[in-house]
């Protein structure tokens, strides 16, 4: 097994560690949003599968900003805060309910939402498998909560309640610290704006600004600034939170909060792949430069563009299109990077979809959530003669994201082979308990499944074991290729030794 650091040695090959964290919407029959924090705690704590409760918060720094300063406090949504007037939820530790799973994932309650953070993955396909495996974890916890309370529980992989409350699906990419804020912002922001045409989840209506019938994204109404470290209020297109979950002198965790929760797995793959492509290009010094002076306005305008022209305003009254922006990254990647099979396939797929969107748009509903959702809704509107303002359209939008395979509209489309297929059920189920190979999540997951009796705490960055009364914290460097031999370790001493020699 090589000790080569893939992130350092050959980032252009696509080996950038990435993960997805999804805050799920949920309803409990007879309960309201006022009860949601208590319900989210019960939701997570009832998870029936193997897990370890002992998250280590010591490396968390959500107020640190990539631009070199630290916020005194993070802003909160004033409307949401009203719900907590006069309420106490106990100490932060009493409220938080982190669970670490044998697959290396973190399942917890973030504010009022159950959240599933996948283990870190090297490949796009592996990340898609873990993202979809997370849906099973949520379903299992929801069924336990329903049985315990006697109330129906529904879970939605979406990002809005249609009334002004949004909750996020965030992507995380570990990149070298030397890239710094300015290069990352310049390389990634145009892609964050443009990629929504290929991976937005779609939304009926609007929650800020002028009324829209249908948007490409669920999140487009919720951005207020080009860049900042906020996530709850005045959210940015480019998030500058500096919380690397790895050695801070070496790594930046790029925290992308502007993406949507996707139901179609190929859409998730594309969403992450396009940002990875931008990062790979920037690491190679080849990322295209587009000067988009008003990223918030550009994001919102694109989200509301029903013409499929997809214009983006540039400096000096010039303009371009999302097609041209994405194509510039695809062309630069082909010309300057040695793409592996996964990224060659991504480039080809994106080109095919761009061409389709510029023309008949016949392929898009199979592969892009917004297009699948819009086709479904347009079919209903044609049949029923309904206007976009009919409440039932938002009800269908919501149910598109219901993660119960027996109820959700996305899953009906999937069963009818109207959208790109899911990975196999066996592959997805296997990821509930198995971590991505050769990642630090592999070591974390094994510590949970094999040595939980000795584990005192763990986080993305390290695991801490109690060895006969002595605590031993083991750092898990993210760029190591963790040995498969770890799995064969019969005792903790051998496990530690292999970990140190990996």
């Amino acid at each position, binding site marked *: 097994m090589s000790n080569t650091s893939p992130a350092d040695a050959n980032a252009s090959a696509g080996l950038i560690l990435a993960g997805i964290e999804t805050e799920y919407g949920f309803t409990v029959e007879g309960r309201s949003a006022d009860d949601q924090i208590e319900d989210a705690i019960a939701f997570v704590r009832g998870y029936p599968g193997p897990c370890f409760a002992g998250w280590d918060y010591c490396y968390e720094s959500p107020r640190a900003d990539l631009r070199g300063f630290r916020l005194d406090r993070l802003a909160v949504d004033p409307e949401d805060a009203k*719900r907590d007037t006069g309420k106490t939820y106990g100490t932060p530790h009493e409220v938080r309910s982190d669970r670490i799973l044998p697959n290396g994932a973190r399942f917890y309650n973030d504010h009022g939402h159950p959240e599933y953070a996948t283990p870190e993955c090297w490949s796009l396909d592996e990340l898609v498998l873990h993202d979809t495996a997370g849906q099973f974890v949520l379903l299992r916890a929801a069924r336990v909560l329903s049985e315990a309370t006697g109330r129906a529980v529904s879970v939605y992989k979406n990002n809005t309640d249609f009334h002004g409350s949004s909750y996020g699906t*965030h992507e995380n990419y570990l990149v070298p610290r030397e890239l710094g804020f300015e290069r990352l912002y310049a390389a990634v922001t145009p892609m964050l704006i443009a990629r929504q045409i290929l991976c937005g989840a779609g939304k009926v209506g609007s929650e800020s600004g002028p009324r829209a019938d249908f948007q490409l994204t669920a999140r487009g109404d919720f951005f207020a600034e080009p860049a900042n470290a906020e996530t709850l209020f005045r959210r940015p297109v480019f998030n500058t939170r500096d919380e690397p979950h790895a050695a801070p002198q070496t790594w930046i965790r790029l925290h992308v909060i502007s993406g949507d929760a996707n139901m179609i797995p190929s859409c998730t793959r594309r969403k992450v792949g396009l940002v990875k492509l931008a990062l790979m290009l920037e690491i190679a*010094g080849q*990322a295209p*430069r587009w000067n988009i002076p008003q990223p918030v306005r550009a994001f919102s305008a694109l989200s509301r563009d029903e013409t499929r022209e997809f214009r983006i305003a540039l400096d000096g*009254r010039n303009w371009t299109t999302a097609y041209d922006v994405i194509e510039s990254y695809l062309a630069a990647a082909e010309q300057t990077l040695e793409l592996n099979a996964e990224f060659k396939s991504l480039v080809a797929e994106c080109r095919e979809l761009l061409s389709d969107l510029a023309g008949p748009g016949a392929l898009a509903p199979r592969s892009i959530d917004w297009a699948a959702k819009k086709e479904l809704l347009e079919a209903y509107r044609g049949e029923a003669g309904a206007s976009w303002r009919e409440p039932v359209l938002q009800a269908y939008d919501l149910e598109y994201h219901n993660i119960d395979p027996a*109820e959700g509209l996305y899953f009906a489309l999937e069963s009818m082979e109207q959208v790109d297929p899911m990975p196999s059920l066996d*592959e997805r189920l296997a990821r509930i308990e198995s971590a991505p190979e050769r990642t630090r999540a592999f070591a974390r997951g094994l510590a949970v499944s094999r040595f939980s009796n000795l584990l005192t705490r763990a986080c993305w960055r390290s695991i801490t074991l109690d060895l006969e009364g002595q605590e031993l914290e083991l750092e898990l460097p993210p760029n190591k290729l963790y040995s498969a031999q770890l799995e064969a370790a019969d005792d903790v001493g051998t496990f530690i030794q292999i970990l140190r020699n990996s």
Partner: protein
Amino acid sequence: MPDGDRLTKPLTREPEKGGDDTGPTRPAVPKPDGGNELLRRMKKIDPDQAKRYRQRSGQ
């Protein structure tokens, strides 16, 4: 939308100061006994469901 020129290519990159080059089987969805599964599910949905759907703000 401004009425300037359409730019189809990105800007020329400025030289970097220093730096380095470091760089399925289907889910367990019950098959309908005929007919359209999508329509069957859509008919079951309460038209006012989203009107009542309220969530806490998250991240």
